[in-house]
């Protein structure tokens, strides 16, 4: 039987199935030319391996190693993100957000939103004229999920409370490639993201408040009026569509 050189090459590279392998091995035993051809393919592979093997032994240059260094290393910052941060800051400064939000935001959003904004269309939030607004799975979780329930998505709701203006606010955790935590408050029929911060908390270890980044906790402390809602209050608020219920109707 005659074998093509491609077939012999595939044999040398370990790409053939058992039957074809057996046929070629039988042919190699019969015909030294076939055995030679296979050996040539193998020898070339070995030569290539040894020719480039030295690269693996070289020390990796610092500029490359630092790119993949763990948390604590300087993040890779690109110009786009710096511009986005600047814009986000300007927007915050000119918005009607209470002071706590601006303060927390200068810590949290200033650091992270810039990087987040440039990540493309699949984000569970969107930048609108009035700020960041929850979309998709985050919007769905904030609207439907009750604390303590295990949703199937990546978004988890933490505590729910009313702010001084009576609007409902909920903390959330978003388990994505770079996990985020934040605070969203109901504004009209949308959830406005007041604070967004990167978090090291992983899914599963999220305690109602313990895993929240400081920026989010401060924002909650500053905004909360009274106590967080209990389960009954939460589910009543949800069923009522999260409409504002002022504490002091005047």
């Amino acid at each position, binding site marked *: 039987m005659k074998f093509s050189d491609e077939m012999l090459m595939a044999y040398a*590279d370990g790409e053939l199935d058992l039957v074809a392998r057996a046929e070629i091995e039988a042919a190699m035993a019969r015909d030294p030319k076939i055995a030679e051809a296979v050996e*040539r393919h193998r020898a070339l592979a070995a030569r290539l391996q040894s020719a480039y093997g*030295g690269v693996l032994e*070289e020390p990796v240059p610092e500029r*490359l190693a630092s790119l993949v260094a*763990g948390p604590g290393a300087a993040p890779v910052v690109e110009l786009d993100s710096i511009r986005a941060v600047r814009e986000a800051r300007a927007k915050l400064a000119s918005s009607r957000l209470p002071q706590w939000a601006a303060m927390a935001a200068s810590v949290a959003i200033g650091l992270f939103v810039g990087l987040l904004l440039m990540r493309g269309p699949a984000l569970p939030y969107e930048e609108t004229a009035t700020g960041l607004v929850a979309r998709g799975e985050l919007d769905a979780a904030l609207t439907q999920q009750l604390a303590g329930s295990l949703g199937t998505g990546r978004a988890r709701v933490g505590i729910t409370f009313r702010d001084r203006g009576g609007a409902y606010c909920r903390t959330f955790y978003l388990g*994505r490639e770079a996990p985020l935590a934040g605070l969203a408050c109901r504004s009209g029929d949308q959830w406005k993201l007041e604070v967004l911060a990167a978090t090291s908390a992983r899914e599963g270890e999220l305690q109602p408040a313990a895993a929240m980044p400081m920026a989010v906790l401060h924002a909650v402390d500053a905004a909360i009026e009274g106590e967080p809602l209990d389960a009954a209050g939460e589910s009543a608020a949800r069923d009522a569509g999260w409409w504002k219920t002022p504490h002091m109707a005047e």
Partner: protein
Amino acid sequence: MSTPTPADEVREALGELLPRLRRFARVITRNVPDADDLVQIAVEKALARAAQWRPGSRLDSWMFGIMKNAWIDEVRARRRRERVHAPEEAGAQVGDASAESRDIALSVQAAMARLPEEQRMAIALVLVEGLSYKDAAETLSVPIGTLTSRLARGREALQRLLGDDRSAR
């Protein structure tokens, strides 16, 4: 303990992959500074799109694909600038090899440098990086038949350039 996020996983795994990424880059760019620039560009891209990597799939093939595309873009840009330079620097650094094995390495690398890019990439993925034909074809976004024919032609050319009489081993 806690499970790492995909981004952490990618970051960590990339750290271990760096030597291989540098090697692949060396094969396709044919010189040291370009190779490390290419690795840097590819790592930055990969970290920015860590979410696109499917956990459980091969990170090395994914990275090689990113590098291939980045290199093709770079070569195109260079051609536009009409600044294609000859690969005379090929293999200037070959680690701690003895003089004899360095000679062999240089001749292999010089021969590789003469191959058309398509063939060089196929050989780099299969014979240097050890990917299966299937993974290599996916990485290059070509049918497996195209991959095997590039591989066969590249090998033939290499064997011609190196001379059969010099077969190592």
